[in-house]
């Protein structure tokens, strides 16, 4: 890892914690998931045409309305331009030089249960530490043995290239009334829900990549939690790209009906290859009155090698719509992978008293580029949002926080607090902050600040009163920043969290 050693040689700024440097180096070190599964694949022809769109729809055995929906999206996509405003730079993508559909041959006839799934596929997930057997405890999670049985159950939907391999705990979830299946299955089994909600949060024409996804999405997860139900276990989708020159376009739709609760986890990895691969997902979340959704992501796509060769282009549209009063959503993301990230999980706070939270750690190394952040759109009264974003850049990487906080005229008495910090390790990388703030009523309060500059006076007073000198107090308040984000991660991500816990933003640049 030539670059990493170079990073080591670079005089790290005084005040930057050595543990942080080591942890970032560890994260940016050898990619652990870069191996490939040797499995016979079934590809659709290269390129994107209406026929390919029809073919994807056909393979998924979709009804006519869905095919039409996709074709309309394809027509829209032809009229759209690729966005160029993000601070990322990559060679032009040839959208005709990609496979849009790839599935393992053994998945031609969909297995009825996990027992029938190709052992090679099961072995793939096993190697990744993803439990596809219902009795299995999570691999590698410290303390999982002592945890109560209820607490360690995680239902998993495993997506391999373009298809869902299987979904665990379906029966148990069904008993609770929760629907958790692949989106292709939901289109067939629950068309009324899909018709009602698909594209209602991220419209087909939302942006170039969302439109592309609407035309060609192959699989993904579907969740419906009925009124008043607290989902009995964590739900999780694990995305694996395996095939070469293949784009992955997954679609996730989560509906939390009145008074329900669900926690959803997402993980992703891909083999190590010299050519870049495209991943353009859309996630839509609908949260009704008094419902709550937690969405956590550990994004670990292949980031490319130390010279910036290969890696995943991660162009993702994620949005949650708090439709009902007192609805609540929490996005937590740990972004360590991908060559290029373009991702802004957003919250539409439509219901009165609804709440949106966004916690993010983005670590870029070598030649990685990340342009990520959130949008908090306050429409309802007394809505609250909180944004905590930590960006760390090392090597030759560029890391940008881009966000919007918008208080509409009717969003009276609303509140936003944003805190962004960035840390640079070495002098060849960059850290950038691009917040947009729009306040259109006067009873709302919006604050954006970089904590290094301003430590809360009251916290400071509290610490000083207890005999700490100023320096100690600042250290206590300002350090351990990353922990705020990590604490928001579910236990299933404890491994990743442990790796990052040493990171502090001491010595941050702004």
């Amino acid at each position: 890892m030539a670059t990493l050693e170079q990073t080591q040689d670079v005089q790290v700024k005084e005040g930057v914690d050595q543990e942080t440097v080591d942890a970032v180096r560890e994260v940016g070190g050898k990619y652990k998931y870069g191996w490939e599964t040797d499995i016979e694949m079934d590809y659709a022809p290269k390129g994107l045409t209406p026929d390919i769109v029809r073919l994807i729809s056909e393979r998924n055995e979709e009804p006519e309305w869905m095919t039409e929906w996709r074709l309309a999206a394809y027509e829209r996509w032809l009229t759209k331009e690729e966005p160029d405003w993000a601070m990322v730079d990559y060679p032009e993508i040839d959208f005709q030089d990609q496979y849009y559909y790839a599935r393992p041959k053994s998945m031609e006839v969909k297995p009825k249960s996990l027992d029938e799934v190709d052992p090679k596929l099961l072995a793939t997930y096993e190697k990744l530490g993803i439990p596809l057997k219902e009795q299995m405890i999570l691999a590698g999670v410290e303390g999982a043995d002592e945890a109560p049985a209820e607490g360690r159950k995680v239902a998993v939907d495993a997506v391999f290239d373009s298809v869902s391999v299987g979904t665990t705990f379906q029966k148990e979830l069904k008993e609770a009334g929760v629907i958790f299946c692949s989106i292709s299955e939901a289109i067939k089994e629950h068309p009324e829900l899909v018709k009602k909600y698909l594209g209602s949060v991220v419209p087909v024409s939302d942006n170039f990549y969302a439109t592309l996804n609407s035309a060609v999405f192959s699989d993904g997860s579907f969740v419906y939690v009925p009124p008043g139900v607290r989902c009995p276990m964590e739900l999780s989708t694990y995305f694996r790209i395996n095939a070469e020159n293949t784009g992955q376009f997954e679609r996730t739709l989560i509906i939390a009906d009145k008074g329900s609760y669900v926690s959803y986890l997402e993980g992703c990895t891909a083999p190590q290859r010299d050519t870049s691969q495209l991943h353009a997902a859309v996630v839509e979340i609908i949260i009704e009155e008094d419902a709550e959704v937690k969405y956590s992501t550990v994004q670990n796509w292949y980031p490319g090698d130390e010279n910036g060769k290969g890696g995943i282009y991660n162009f993702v549209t994620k949005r949650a719509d708090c439709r009902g009063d007192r609805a609540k959503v929490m996005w937590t993301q740990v972004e360590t992978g991908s060559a290029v990230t373009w991702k802004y999980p957003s919250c539409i706070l439509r219901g009165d008293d609804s709440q949106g939270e966004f916690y993010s750690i983005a670590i870029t190394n070598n030649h990685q580029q990340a342009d990520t952040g959130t949008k908090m759109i306050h429409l309802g009264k007394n809505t609250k949002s909180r944004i905590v974003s930590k960006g760390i850049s090392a090597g030759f990487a560029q890391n940008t926080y881009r966000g919007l906080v918008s208080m509409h005229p009717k969003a009276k008495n609303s509140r936003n607090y944003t805190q962004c910090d960035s840390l640079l390790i070495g002098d060849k990388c960059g850290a950038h902050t691009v917040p947009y703030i729009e306040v259109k009523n006067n009873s709302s309060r919006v604050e954006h600040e970089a904590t290094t500059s301003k430590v809360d006076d009251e916290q400071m007073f509290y610490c000083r009163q207890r005999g700490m000198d100023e320096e100690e107090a600042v250290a206590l308040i300002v350090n351990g920043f990353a922990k705020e984000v990590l604490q928001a991660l579910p236990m299933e991500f404890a491994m990743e969290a442990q790796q990052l816990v040493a990171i502090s933003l001491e010595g941050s640049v702004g």
Partner: protein
Amino acid sequence: MALDDRKLNATEERLAAMTVPDVGCTKTARQSALARVRAMGLPARRDEYWKFTRPDTLVQPEAPKAAVFASDEAWVFDAIDRLKIVFVDGVFNADLSDDLTLEGVEIDRLEDVCCQDNHWAEDFYGTLEANSHDPVERPLAALNTAFAGDGVTIRVTGKPSKPISLIYTHESETSDVFLHHVVRVESGAEATILENGPAAARFNKCFEIDIADGGTLHHIRAQGRDHERRAAAHMFARLGKESVYKSFTLTVNGVLTRNETVIELTGDDAVAHVAGACLGDGDFHHDDTVFITHDAVNCESRQVFKKVLRNGATGVFQGKILVKPGAQKTDGYQISQSLLLDDDSQFLAKPELEIYADDVACSHGSTSGAIDEDALFYLRARGVPKDIATDLLTLAFLAEAVDEIENEEIADEINGRLEGWLERRRG
């Protein structure tokens, strides 16, 4: 990228209505500025850099009419001993101006630059503007370089005993004015420049300031109070080693104001402070767009912007600190705050950082909200009527920006004005 048709047409329509003044020695600079305008196109509604401010009325061929504001109050800075340079609807007026000789400074009219051999400003005119278009384009400034009808060149060689005061009066309802000033502060020299007045129905002003090593410039402006005036002002400054530039802008009325400040810290240990206070009431749109580039070691920059808005006023702040690779030990600070006195007013902000050096401290903060109810209650409980209490808190809110003015006499003048205006408004 080729311009879209709409933008191209709007640009050509405007250019067709204008002629480049025949000022011999600046001809080349003007021609290349005109070429820049054609290449960039004038700002349009969908431009990212104009996201929060509609440029239409600044671009259209005819300046929208603006009534001259009648007021019995004395002009800002009238009480201060200064050297006056007066422009009436954008034309220098020798009768109203003082004699332009003052020890430690050389002042010329822009058109006189060409009468002198090797005038220092000859090669300088338009250079900072020309360099300012990457990464964001500023076509209205290029338009100014091409078409500026008047202006002054100021070369500070020593420490003049009094401030140099540029006064812009507005007499015609349809005046459409371009002024371009060029300033050079020589090594170790120090001066204060004051500006005030509404200038015109539509005013496009460009200031190019070059501060040599160890030079210092204080720049205080009070933008005119005519309700219906429109202005787009560009302030370009390049700072040498250990030089200092401190500016403060007070804006009270005006239907549209766009103030762009573009500063480049090119010498080590340079210091740039940019501050602004604005009181917006009613049909008022005020945009502060600041771009500070750190391109040297151990420089300090500070942006402090405060806006009080009511009755449907809009305040905009777009600020950026760019720290170039190698600009280590940069200390960058940026704060933008708005006080919204009612639900009809709005604050739109984009406080940006772009950092390519690891040993720096850049902080930016932005807040927006209503008046502090606790503070209001405190004052009212002590018998202060609500409107006076609100004004007191408004002044306190603006104080952080006004405090950026080092000269106490000038700071008092600005504070006195603010108090007076609030008092008049209360009636």
